[in-house]
């Protein structure tokens, strides 16, 4: 079946949809720009890998703990954001990414530069999923995360987020605790990135420190912004586009990366709010 190629791409695309939606909680909702999101992704993936390989825990447990520990580190590493703002926060999160990857590399418990290999395939009712099954399984989580996002858009949480994004002083003046809501945003974002990390670890069957390095953070941010910050459909489109683009561009072989970069520049210049952003052409086209 040649469909496996497609299924694999869909799986990766699903994982990155979850990542970009989780980053969107931070950037789009709460206005906290992070360029270190791959760190949370990595923490989730390593949690699953360590628990599954070194402690032999089953899939359900590793999934749950990846989300919890991802959320916990989101909380922990979100604490600096209480003191550090704007561009300083962007740079602090870049730093965080480097430090986390360095720790994976330098601590033998995490396998050092070898990473951790040998995650068993995720099993459901004793059955192993094929590539198609896993694509479907990750799609299930995408749906859950989208529903969660739709839910968040309806509850007070989002109003608190929007308030601190648009004006921290005004937010405080209506009773929104800015530190508390920043921590909420980092925790939720970290937990969802942890989920993505779990899905990645079982997809690859292994984790390497470099899979979570700074360029990955850049990719996730680009997905969110290219698609449309603050919307739900935007980050999804961004993730799908940037996952499939390198494959779709294969026909130009040698100019692939060049064109990839140029496309990002052009889209952002002419669609600065993102393709599906509030003023994006695609959004307008759909409204017709």
């Amino acid at each position, binding site marked *: 079946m040649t469909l496996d190629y497609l299924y694999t791409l869909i799986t990766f695309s699903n994982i990155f949809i979850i990542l970009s939606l989780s980053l969107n909680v931070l950037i789009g909702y709460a206005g906290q720009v992070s360029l270190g999101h791959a760190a949370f992704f990595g923490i989730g993936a390593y949690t699953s890998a360590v628990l599954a390989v070194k402690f032999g825990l089953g899939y359900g447990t590793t999934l749950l703990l990846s989300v919890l520990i991802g959320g916990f580190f989101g909380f922990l590493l979100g604490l600096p954001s209480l003191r550090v703002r704007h561009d300083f926060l962007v740079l602090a999160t870049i730093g965080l990414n480097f430090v986390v990857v360095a720790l994976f590399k330098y601590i033998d418990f995490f396998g050092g530069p070898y990473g951790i290999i040998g995650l068993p395939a995720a099993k459901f009712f004793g059955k192993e999923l094929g590539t198609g099954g896993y694509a479907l399984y990750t799609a299930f989580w995408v749906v859950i995360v989208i529903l969660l996002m739709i839910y968040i858009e309806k509850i007070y949480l989002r109003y608190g987020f929007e308030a601190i994004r648009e004006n921290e002083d005004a937010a405080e003046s209506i009773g929104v605790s800015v530190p508390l809501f920043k921590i909420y945003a980092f925790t939720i974002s970290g937990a969802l990135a942890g989920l993505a990390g779990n899905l990645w670890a079982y997809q690859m069957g292994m984790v390497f420190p470099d899979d979570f390095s700074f360029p990955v953070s850049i990719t996730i941010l680009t997905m969110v912004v290219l698609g449309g910050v603050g919307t739900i459909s935007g980050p999804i489109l961004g993730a799908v586009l940037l996952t499939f683009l390198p494959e779709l561009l294969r026909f130009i072989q040698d100019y692939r*990366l060049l064109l990839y970069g140029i496309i990002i520049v052009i889209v952002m210049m002419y669609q600065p709010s993102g393709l599906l952003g509030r003023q994006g052409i695609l959004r307008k086209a759909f409204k017709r």
Partner: protein
Amino acid sequence: MRRLLAVLLVVAVSLAMAGVIKIGLFVPLSGIGADDGESALHGAMLAVKYVNDHGGVLGKKLELVYYDDQTDPKQSVSLAYKLVQKDGVVAVVSGSYSGPTRAAAGIYQRLKTPMVSAYAVHPDITKAGEYIFRVGTLATVQGRAGAHLAVEKLKAKRIALLVMDNDFGVSLANAFKAEAKKLGAEIVFEEKFAVGEKDFRTILEKVKKLDPDVIYATGYYFNASKIVTQAKELGIYQTIIGQEGYDSPLFIELSKNHAANGTVITTDLDRDSERPVVQWFMKEYEKEFGRPADMVAASAFDAVMILAKAIEIAGSTSKSAIKDALYKVSGIDSVTGFKHFTKDREAVREVVCQVIVGDRFHRFWVIDDPEIVTPGK
């Protein structure tokens, strides 16, 4: 009517394809690993040319299908399906680094398609299963050989160790350390450095104070050229021992003030070998691609040569037959002195020690003691 056309099309295509056997290759051609990727691609292309010039395999021509993986495991994994299922290759060569190679190895094993890794060093790659082989010398073997070179040939008693902080550097250093201690030498200094490190003076200062007999420095040619340059600057004249990571003409070019001279390395590529295939490869590579061949190119060349031989032994393009045949391949026209695979699918070959004199690699010593060069011992 439409169905008939479709059938005709399929027949036509299969007739046209009948004359070729496809081998896949994934390499980084853009992004961070693009230089090694290009070498690996060129090496593989040259091997295909060599095989086809010598009559092809099973009366058919070899064809190379290659894709850029950008050193990204996402891409190497999806490419695995593409190469096997869409392009219908019968076997695959990895010309990529450890991460993408290890990630893809699991997929090739699942798809029951033989994969030969050219130069990726991660020890677990071949553990993915019975279909996954490696041409390059294991870091553990090289580390061990390096220890013999240091202690037996260079009579070192006190050794300083510089360890690159990735899988390659750490494997080499661990194997070297264990063997050197066994041989009675003492490790007087050990420190890690990052792959991208450019300034070794601080470490080298410390090494200089300890005055060891030799320095075993893991690394790639771009680290190594800085290590030797800065060592010379600081007046360190002890022999520096390197490994295949150094094995690139760029190592010599990038070192300043001819500082590379005197360095001894363990590697797979014996440039002084009289074997015709080596001479042909070195000459043809430079003619075709305008630069001297390096170890990466040689390994990719051999990976294709080994696959060609395996297909011939198998007598068919059945993937499982090719896999079985790979265990039997030996005595091929190899640039890197490949002998055969062990049952763990690691390559056995002589380890060649080369010394740099007059800004050129020369043969220095050959280690062929099976105790040392057989992986897994």
